[in-house]
């Protein structure tokens, strides 16, 4: 349910206090309208010295209240070079560059979006920081008031090179002014072990983004781009009676809306002989008649009013632009679909119809902003990805909900609908990284909306995603195994489930290749284990590995390039989010790698690697054998050998369906039976020995410490079960030596010693 904050009531005309400060020490009245930077520092200093505001009450209409919300900018400027008055021939000596001290050009700019008053304030600040010339970070903080014109908050979201922006807290001080150019916001970033950072941003706009609309219509169709909010008697009693346009609806969402000026009529011939529109015909019309069409991301959206979709009256509208490289630039509204049929007995059918057409237009355009339906916010893979798990809002009074789907139907919906988006949707539209929202940028449903993770201002745990190597670079074809480290950063012991990190039900892992949409990692299998509580003392950590290369989405980590991986662990009381981890996959080094890649990146191979072997997936096993043979010097061979050897170490049960049947039927009806596949100890020993103990440092680095120890332990246990405890002890000796050189925890080395000693006891 959309919350009614009660703030920002446009009909109120509050008396406004214009603060004037007195310095109790100097007894001098300090003017707040001095130079912005001086004012900001001065006011802060006055506040710190206990200065108090002397209210001067004046009746000032709402629009002139010194609203602070909007977009602010901080620019680093340099003097502009002076161009020579006449062109200098290339053959002539070139003069040294001269700088014009009077003219400055921006070197780079940082932005702040402050959302603490005005329409539907979200009590949020977001911004883009450039800690270096080539890096940028998007951050978001939830704000709470901390004094007059001061807000503080926790940074709960970062996108970009977060390692270069470790801050966790913000403190924002606003200087309000009747004159926009004198408004400033000073942001102090703190926490994360970094020195304080302070930036002063100058007010630029009361809006968070600019967007442009174009409304075209098919011949004979009237676009509905505005309504009278009181035309229909079924409405919220508090809603102001006014002409509401589509532009105003999105203005209230925080956008500076302009029109392209290209509104036009699309000839009906574009719909073909049936006068109904297919998706392809609408795409063609968009490219032909939209005055802003371009194969690029841009804050510009085309809305097309037509009669009917080819599918008939059941489709009221559609954001049809979900193909090609630039999604979400075109939407369509079908005036003669079911939205033209007012319910029987409706008190004002004409107003009802107009309202439904208006709602449909805003709804479809909301999809253009990458908003999902209210009841499908939690929907992710394989259709796309919310960044953080979202909560569905099936009863939301939002443009993104179907009026007829809520309890009580459309009557209940419109009795309580204020022609707005929900708070979660506004948070996304205003504060998400622009590329998630901008039309033509992130694919439809990729990064659709997101919600504040339940990040505690005093987190209990810290989660790391890392690789056990000095540089996060992986060979082409090398399966990627990362380490999760969960550390107790609180002052007291914490009770957690022993299998917390291996329980993927609680873990959200997102993989993103640079320049491509993010993908949610979906493992091949989820395991149900009984909870086993263990105590994690303060400062201690638990570790586990995660094989991220492949899952039910296929191989998410395959092509050469840069990737970002981030994890969120969902605990009962809080969500713990890791910093983004960046890794690089190197290009192939030769023909063999490229050749084998065609077969390697398959579902079979992914499953064999994920499950450490298979006795059934013969094709995948064949590929891995070829990899181990032809790419014996490459790290992928180690992983192949582990999988091949592990599968052969012991006898296995195999479901044999014989010839099987094409139609779905039971295994029994198909004549299936469980058979036994015998072990091949000699082959298993050869494969595992080659994988684990011919290039130990390489194996430990590529498999990861957790998995390297796991495979070595399984190998030595197997040897001991086969009666060769001496060899089992030798394996543990090698393991000890390798991991000691890699400086693993003493606790791990003790475990290895204990295991070795257990083999000695077995011998005795």
């Amino acid at each position, binding site marked *: 349910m959309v919350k009614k904050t009660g703030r920002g009531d446009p009909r109120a005309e509050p008396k406004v206090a214009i603060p004037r400060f007195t310095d109790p020490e100097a007894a001098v009245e300090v003017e707040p309208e001095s130079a912005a930077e001086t004012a900001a520092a001065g006011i802060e200093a006055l506040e710190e010295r206990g200065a108090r505001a002397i209210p001067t009450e004046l009746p000032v209409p709402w629009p002139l209240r010194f609203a602070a919300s909007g977009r602010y900018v901080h620019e680093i400027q340099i003097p502009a070079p002076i161009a020579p008055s006449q062109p200098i021939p290339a053959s002539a000596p070139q003069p040294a560059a001269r700088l014009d001290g009077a003219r400055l050009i921006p070197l780079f700019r940082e932005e702040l979006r402050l959302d603490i008053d005005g329409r539907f304030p979200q009590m949020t600040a977001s911004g883009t920081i450039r800690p270096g010339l080539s890096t940028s970070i998007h951050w978001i903080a939830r704000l709470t008031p901390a004094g007059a014109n001061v807000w503080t908050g926790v940074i709960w979201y970062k996108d970009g090179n977060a390692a270069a922006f470790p801050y966790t807290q913000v403190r924002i001080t606003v200087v309000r002014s009747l004159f926009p150019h004198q408004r400033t916001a000073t942001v102090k970033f703190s926490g994360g072990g970094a020195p304080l950072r302070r930036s002063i941003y100058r007010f630029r706009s009361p809006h968070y983004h600019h967007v442009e609309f174009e409304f075209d219509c098919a011949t004979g169709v009237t676009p509905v781009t505005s309504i009278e909010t009181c035309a229909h008697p079924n409405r919220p009693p508090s809603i102001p009676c006014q002409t509401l346009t589509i532009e105003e609806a999105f203005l209230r969402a925080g956008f500076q809306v302009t029109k392209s000026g290209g509104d036009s009529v699309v000839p009906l011939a574009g719909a073909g002989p049936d006068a109904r529109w297919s998706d392809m015909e609408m795409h063609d019309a968009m490219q032909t008649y939209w005055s802003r069409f371009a194969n690029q991301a841009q804050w510009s959206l085309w809305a097309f009013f037509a009669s009917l979709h*080819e*599918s*008939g*009256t*059941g*489709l*009221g*509208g*559609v*954001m049809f632009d*979900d193909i090609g490289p630039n999604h979400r630039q075109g939407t369509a509204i079908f005036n003669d679909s*079911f*939205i033209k049929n007012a319910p029987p007995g409706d008190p004002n059918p004409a107003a009802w119809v107009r309202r439904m057409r208006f709602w*449909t237009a805003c*709804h*479809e355009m909301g*999809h253009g902003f990458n908003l*999902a*339906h209210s009841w*499908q916010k939690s*929907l992710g893979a*394989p*259709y*796309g990805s919310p960044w953080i798990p979202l909560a569905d809002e099936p009863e939301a009074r939002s443009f993104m909900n*179907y009026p*007829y789907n809520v309890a009580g139907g459309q009557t209940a919906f419109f009795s309580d609908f204020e022609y707005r988006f929900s708070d979660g949707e506004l948070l996304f539209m205003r504060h998400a990284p622009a590329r998630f929202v901008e039309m033509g940028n992130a694919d*439809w*449903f990729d990064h659709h909306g997101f919600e504040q993770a339940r990040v505690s201002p005093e987190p209990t745990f810290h989660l790391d995603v890392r690789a056990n190597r000095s540089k996060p670079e992986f060979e082409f074809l090398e399966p990627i195994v990362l380490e999760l480290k969960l550390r107790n950063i609180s002052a007291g012991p914490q009770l957690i489930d022993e299998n917390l990190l291996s329980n993927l039900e609680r873990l959200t892992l997102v993989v993103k290749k640079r320049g491509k949409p993010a993908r949610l990692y979906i493992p091949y299998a989820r395991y149900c284990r009984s909870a086993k509580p263990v105590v994690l003392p303060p400062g201690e950590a638990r570790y586990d590995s995660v094989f991220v290369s492949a899952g039910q989405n296929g191989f998410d980590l395959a092509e050469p390039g840069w990737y970002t991986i981030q994890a969120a662990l969902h605990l009962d009381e809080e969500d713990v989010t890791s910093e983004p981890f960046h890794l690089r996959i190197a290009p192939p080094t030769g023909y063999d790698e490229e050749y084998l890649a065609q077969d390697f990146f398959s579902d079979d191979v992914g499953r064999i690697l994920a499950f450490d072997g298979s006795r059934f997936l013969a094709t995948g096993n064949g590929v891995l054998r070829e990899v181990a043979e032809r790419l014996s010097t490459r790290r992928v061979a180690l992983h192949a050998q582990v999988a091949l050897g592990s599968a052969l170490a012991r006898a296995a049960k195999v479901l044999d369906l014989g010839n099987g049947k094409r139609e*779905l039927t039971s295994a029994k009806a198909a004549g299936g039976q469980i058979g036994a596949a015998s072990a091949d100890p000699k082959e298993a020993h050869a494969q595992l020995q080659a994988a684990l103990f011919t290039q130990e440092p390489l194996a430990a680095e590529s498999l990861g410490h957790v998995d390297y120890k796991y495979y070595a332990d399984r190998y030595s246990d197997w040897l001991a079960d086969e009666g060769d405890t001496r060899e089992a002890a030798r394996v543990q000796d090698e393991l000890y030596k390798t991991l000691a050189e890699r400086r693993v925890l003493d606790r791990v080395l003790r475990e290895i010693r204990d295991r070795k000693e257990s083999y000695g006891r077995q011998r005795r």
Partner: protein
Amino acid sequence: MIDLGRELSVPVLQIDLANGFFRDRVRVDLNGRTVLDREDVTTRTQIEFAADCSAEVATGRSKLQVVLSERGLSESFPVDVSGPTYLEISIAPDGRIRCRSSPEPFRRA
């Protein structure tokens, strides 16, 4: 596609594949006759619709079977038809095939 706005002497069954489909091979049989057999069926989340078909069917009870062979899913549903009937087939989050029926077209936007 049959225009369901026209009155027909023989009832028409409109079958929509709606939610939960992703690159699925889907076969729909009506009274043993295949009315839809399609690969790569994927739900368009913005309208919760993947594919559709329609078939004329006699009044009374019919049997609808939906098969997703690659996922190992199959479900049969009894369908009572007395006039134009609209069915919506979805794959629920629990992995089961669900079917709901309406005398009017399902509304999407």
